[in-house]
């Protein structure tokens, strides 16, 4: 037995290229289905894990995939904004916890999503600063651990929000956001985000702003009209681009709060009754919808399963082709090595030993191919994260 194994090893070492090509073919045939299955399963489990953290998402009518991924992964979408009124109504519902999310802006040249929400978002997701503190006024931000590392930012640092329309001089300018806390790592999209208060998002939208007291502005070209009750200012009045402790109190909203935009609302009903009431009420409205993120993921996974079935079919064909190839190689190899087998017989080697030697050779190739396929699968899983960051 040891002799058969030794002979098989010596043969493989004597023909490294031939053996290597054979092992590589088998490795590819194994790695493709194994790798795709492993990645898909990990993808499924992580998507479901994120989706299960939010029982319901309320947002504007439209693509429920867009709504789910805007709420869970802060992806910018074309969905219409959801008015704050929806959130205010949910706050009035008994046995319901509602958390607003506004994810329509980015910072640092599109590198980091600016997620505006309430303090309850941090609490509900268990996000706490490792350094610094939580935002306490408009213009302050906490940054996710990965974003902080990538941008080299920490407490005391700052980052400018991205202007939505770079060449539109009437669009609201960028706003300097002060980093007051760095969140602990959670392994979620929160690690890549810059999290601010809702009021800050409305400053970025240009709906809220700060400027010198209207009553104290003396320049005639900036004041269109003045009466006891009303001061009409020119649009040329420069609003603050940097929010400081000194001017934060001067920031104010234009228009009723009820109409201000949100991207989505995360809803946590206490029980099935509350969940049903929320879904029924929201779905009855003309402009809003309530989705269950896990069901959206179900549909997405069902679609992906079809892709996986295609990959599996291709893999089966590849595996069959490889096995056929290996069979052919084996038969040809037996004929090519007829003289070698005859010599082994003439020097006293039993027929079983020769068979065992071939079995060792085949087993060795399969073992090496399996190991290579395993390494390739692990590497694919490891590369998935950087690929994802590059893709988004």
């Amino acid at each position: 037995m040891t002799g058969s194994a030794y002979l098989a090893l010596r043969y493989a070492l004597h023909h490294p290229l031939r053996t290597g090509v054979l092992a590589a073919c088998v490795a590819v045939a194994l790695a493709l289905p194994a790798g795709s299955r492993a990645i898909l399963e990990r993808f499924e489990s992580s998507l479901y894990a994120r989706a299960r953290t939010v029982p319901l998402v309320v947002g504007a009518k439209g693509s429920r995939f867009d709504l789910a991924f805007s709420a869970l992964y802060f992806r910018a979408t074309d969905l219409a904004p959801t008015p704050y009124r929806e959130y205010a109504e949910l706050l009035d519902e008994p046995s319901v916890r509602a958390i607003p999310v506004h994810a329509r802006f980015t910072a640092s040249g599109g590198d980091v999503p600016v997620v505006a929400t309430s303090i309850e978002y941090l609490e509900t997701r268990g996000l706490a600063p490792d350094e610094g503190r939580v935002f306490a006024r408009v213009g302050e931000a906490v940054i996710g651990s990965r974003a902080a590392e990538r941008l080299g930012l920490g407490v005391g640092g700052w980052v400018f929000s991205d202007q939505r329309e770079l060449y539109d001089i009437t669009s609201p300018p960028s706003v300097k956001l002060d980093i007051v806390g760095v969140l602990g790592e959670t392994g979620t999209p929160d690690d890549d985000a810059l999290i601010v208060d809702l009021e800050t998002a409305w400053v970025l939208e240009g709906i809220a702003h700060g400027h010198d007291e209207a009553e104290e502005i003396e320049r005639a070209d900036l004041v269109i009209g003045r009466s006891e009750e009303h001061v009409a200012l020119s649009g040329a009045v420069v609003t603050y681009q940097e929010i400081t402790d000194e001017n934060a109190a001067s920031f104010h909203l234009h228009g009723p709060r009820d109409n201000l935009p949100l991207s989505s609302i995360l809803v946590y009903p206490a029980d099935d009754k509350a969940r049903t009431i929320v879904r029924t009420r929201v779905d009855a409205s003309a402009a809003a919808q309530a989705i269950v993120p896990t069901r959206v993921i179900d549909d997405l996974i069902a679609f992906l399963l079809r892709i996986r079935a295609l990959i599996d079919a291709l893999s089966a064909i590849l595996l069959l082709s490889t096995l056929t190839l290996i069979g052919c190689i084996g038969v040809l190899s037996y004929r090519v090595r007829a003289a070698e087998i005859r010599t082994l017989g003439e020097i006293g080697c039993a027929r079983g030993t020769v068979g065992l030697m071939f079995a060792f050779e085949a087993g060795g190739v399969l073992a090496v191919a399996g190991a290579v396929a395993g390494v390739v699968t692990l590497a694919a899983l490891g590369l998935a994260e950087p690929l994802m960051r590059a893709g988004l």
Partner: protein
Amino acid sequence: MRLRLLALACCVWLVGCSESGERAATPTEPELERAVYATAYPVAYFAERISGGTVPVRLTVPEDADPVSWQPSAAEIAAFQGARLVVTNGAGFEGWVGSAPLARSRIVESTRAFEDELLTIETATHSHGPGGEHTHEGIDPHTWMDPVQAQRQARAIASAMGEAFEGEDFDANLAALIEDLASLDRGFRDAGLEGLSLLANHGTYNYLARRYGFEVRTVDLDPGSEDVVAAVEAVRGAIDESPALIMLWEAAPAEIVASALERELGVRSVVMSPGERRPGSGDYLALMRENILRLAEAGR
């Protein structure tokens, strides 16, 4: 649509791969300080009475600060963020609360239930750019001056405290507070205010006027000012339009002004403290009782 779905699928595939450490499905419950934080003295008093000492009630507005214009520091905001319950008067009294990053679900706006009944007051507005005129709410925030409204505020606070502090029974304390507020209501009714025409140095008494059927006109005067000429002129202008014999002041006016108004115009000055800040001695109830006594005496 299929292409879009395919693109989304590829994208989220990659997203999913990065999510190795997602947390459990159950949302985390924050660790909150077992306390009620109040933003104004009247509601702090109501919360203290309802609590009866079982739950700490904190009023962090500095004693020398105006609760209307007070802006809390980051550390003070952090304290509010960590409180189990934040009790506010509402009606625009605490301007900072609307824009502060606090948990909305833990804020009790005690006037919310009757916001449709709130009185509006004139405020300065401004407009600029395409956004049009700013929509600052000109609401009179002195809701607690009316003891009947104060009862509704107390009930709202008690209800929220009951939900926030499970296992605590505040019913008896609330009943005692409601009875005290009802006694204030009786006191104001007995003061014989109906049909009177009064002046006030600030627009603080509109809810009282509505409740007890008297008229009040505001003559903006600073109680600390000793400008007798300006005060007499302003009050003379007001009583020329409609006679009045009593002027209500939020704080004691300068003696020289009070005596000049009485001597030259026959207008008596009565201190009617709104109790926006915690009094040096006594409490909201004592303060209001003193207000009633002074008012009844002046009306005789």
